[in-house]
């Protein structure tokens, strides 16, 4: 029993990471109907920004919440800047073009960043600086809960709630919803579509930055291809939950994490990735819009 509970905890922790990154995918998709494949590379750059930032400002000298906050800030700023650049130079010129063109561009940007990352940062893995020390918060018999695990889950949930509030209750949020509904009508209503899309990318990319720091602390090995698989799985999580739906991203992420953990624990790690994608196909067979997805009723 204790073992099962520990597996559930492990699974939720893994799922929280997927959920956090899935939020970024869902956010951009909700507004642009664009699967921003470059999101996983923004996440990777965030990890390296945090790495170089923490080394530059000697944040590892006195690890704690202050150093952690500063690292988070660095990653968020750099990720937002990168997200903006990608939007401005890769997606905006194609705004009127068919969706497939933008999708292919997204894949191109993603590959470009992966391999540019190998040139700029070097292909060997780096050790993520320990700006915050992990500790066991709670242990009951064999069951253990770590500080980072709780932090990641909490950050994912808080981010989801804040985003929900932002989208549904603020003026900018209303504008985002309007743009998501129709570019043209939004323009007629006096909304600056370009700046609204920029806001979307800033928010989405900052989330990738937060995710990068949290995951970097938990699995302190970062390398330029680190975003690929985790990004793909987060994307699957977003689709599972219903892409464009914020709570759906959380549900999808946690579900993925739990299923993977159970597969690794009771079957074999060989089937870990097969399961992730099998699950996607299975759910989409029965519910094509995802678990919480609604067909164009309300989007981000």
């Amino acid at each position: 029993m204790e073992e099962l509970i520990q597996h559930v905890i492990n699974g939720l922790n893994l799922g929280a990471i997927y959920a956090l990154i899935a939020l970024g995918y869902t956010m951009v998709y909700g507004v642009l109907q664009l699967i921003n494949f470059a999101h996983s590379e923004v996440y990777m750059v965030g990890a390296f920004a945090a790495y170089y930032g923490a080394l530059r400002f000697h944040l590892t000298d006195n690890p704690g919440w202050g150093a952690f906050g500063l690292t988070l800030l660095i990653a968020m700023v750099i990720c937002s800047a990168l997200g903006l650049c990608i939007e401005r130079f890769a997606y905006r010129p194609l705004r009127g073009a068919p969706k497939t063109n933008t999708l292919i561009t997204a894949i191109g940007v993603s590959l470009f960043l992966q391999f540019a990352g190998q040139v700029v940062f070097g292909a060997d893995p780096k050790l993520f600086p320990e700006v915050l020390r992990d500790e066991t918060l709670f242990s009951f018999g064999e069951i253990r809960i770590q500080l980072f695990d709780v932090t990641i889950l909490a950050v994912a949930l808080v981010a989801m709630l804040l985003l929900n509030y932002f989208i549904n209750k603020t003026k900018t949020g209303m504008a985002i919803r309007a743009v998501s509904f129709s570019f043209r009508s939004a323009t007629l209503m006096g909304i600056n579509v370009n700046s609204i899309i920029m806001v979307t990318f800033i928010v989405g990319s900052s989330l990738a930055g937060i995710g990068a720091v949290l995951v970097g602390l938990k699995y302190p090995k970062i390398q330029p291809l680190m975003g690929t698989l985790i990004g793909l799985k987060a994307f699957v999580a977003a689709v599972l939950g219903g892409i464009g739906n914020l709570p759906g991203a959380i549900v999808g992420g946690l579900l993925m994490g739990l299923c993977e953990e159970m597969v690794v624990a009771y079957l074999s790690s060989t089937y870990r990735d097969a399961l992730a994608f099998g699950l996607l196909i299975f759910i989409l067979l029965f519910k094509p819009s995802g678990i919480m997805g609604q067909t164009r009723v309300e989007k981000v």
Partner: protein
Amino acid sequence: MSRLNQIMVGASVACMAIAFSFGCTKNSETPAPPAAADNVIKIGQFGSMTGDEATFGQSTDKGVRLAIDARNAAGGIKGKKIVLLTEDDQGKPEEASAVVKKLITQDKVIALLGEVASTRSLAAAPIAQQFKVPMVSPSSTNPKVTQVGDYIFRVCFIDPVQGPIVARFAHDTLKVMKVAILKDLKSDYSLGLSEFFVKKFTELGGKIVAEQTFQAGDSDFKGQLTRIRASAPDAIFIPAYYTEVGLIARQARQLGLKAVLIGGDGWDSPKLFEIGQESVNGSYFSNHYSSESPAPATQDFIKKYKEKFNETPDGLAAAGFDAAQILLNAIASAPELTSAAVRERLAATKDFDGATGKITINADRNADKDIFIVKVDGKALKFVTLLKPTN
């Protein structure tokens, strides 16, 4: 088609034809000279200079360069300078076969040095064998590597020797009875080593209480470790490379696993402690060498290495140094500078006094050697014992 268009097309066809014929003449006039005809002797090296096992390639390269630079400083071989051509395979088997093909067909190297990881040696070996270019692996331990053919050599022990020795050490010295295994499904090294360990350990009366797997590149091992924890092992045997070992050790300790961790030569890297930190402290693994070995050849190597690179060499640097030395000796003693002649001399290597101990190449083109057991003690690796490969 207008007249102008016809002229344009005609002109471009003519241009193509001229360019093509130039291309042909150029090729037929200057065939690449064979290695021996040059004033240099070219040796090819392939290794993981970048990637997840980057320190393997970098350390090996330093050891190899130390040996070659020393030989060049002493006048080279038969008046010729030795040139080392190093290619990075990024830790990927498909890259390893690509760069080896390039080294053989384009650069016309007389012999090859590499790789550390068995999976990548196995990817390259068939190509070396096909072109009949001798390949010396400094530290690939999977038995299949040298079974590829008579041009493939290694200067280290093999896993059917290493696995049982670690098993015997765990059983006799550490007195552990219940061992859990966590192995990498994608790695020939990991699968081979765990197989030979398990066989010997159960023979000795020990019990394997759990056998879990992961895949290279994973970063979450908590599922497997939670299963292992439930089986309450005295020790966990992790035949894997240092990056994963570091992460596994951390997560094991987070889950409250106190079992001693045991591994093989894939653990040897300065990054092991950097990634694993205090979680890897007190672990044991088998290795090609120990910097605390009193053997004069070892101490002499360490002194020269420190002078040149200002750091203590790891086992892979020592193995790289030995592989290069043995290859250079074979080239120097070969009657003529051909790959076939070098192969003959490599096969005849006997009682070479290397940095990793006495090396004799046996009939299977493997080295008969003693195996070191070291203990992780902070950033240092403490010598524990030296075991002879008896069964």
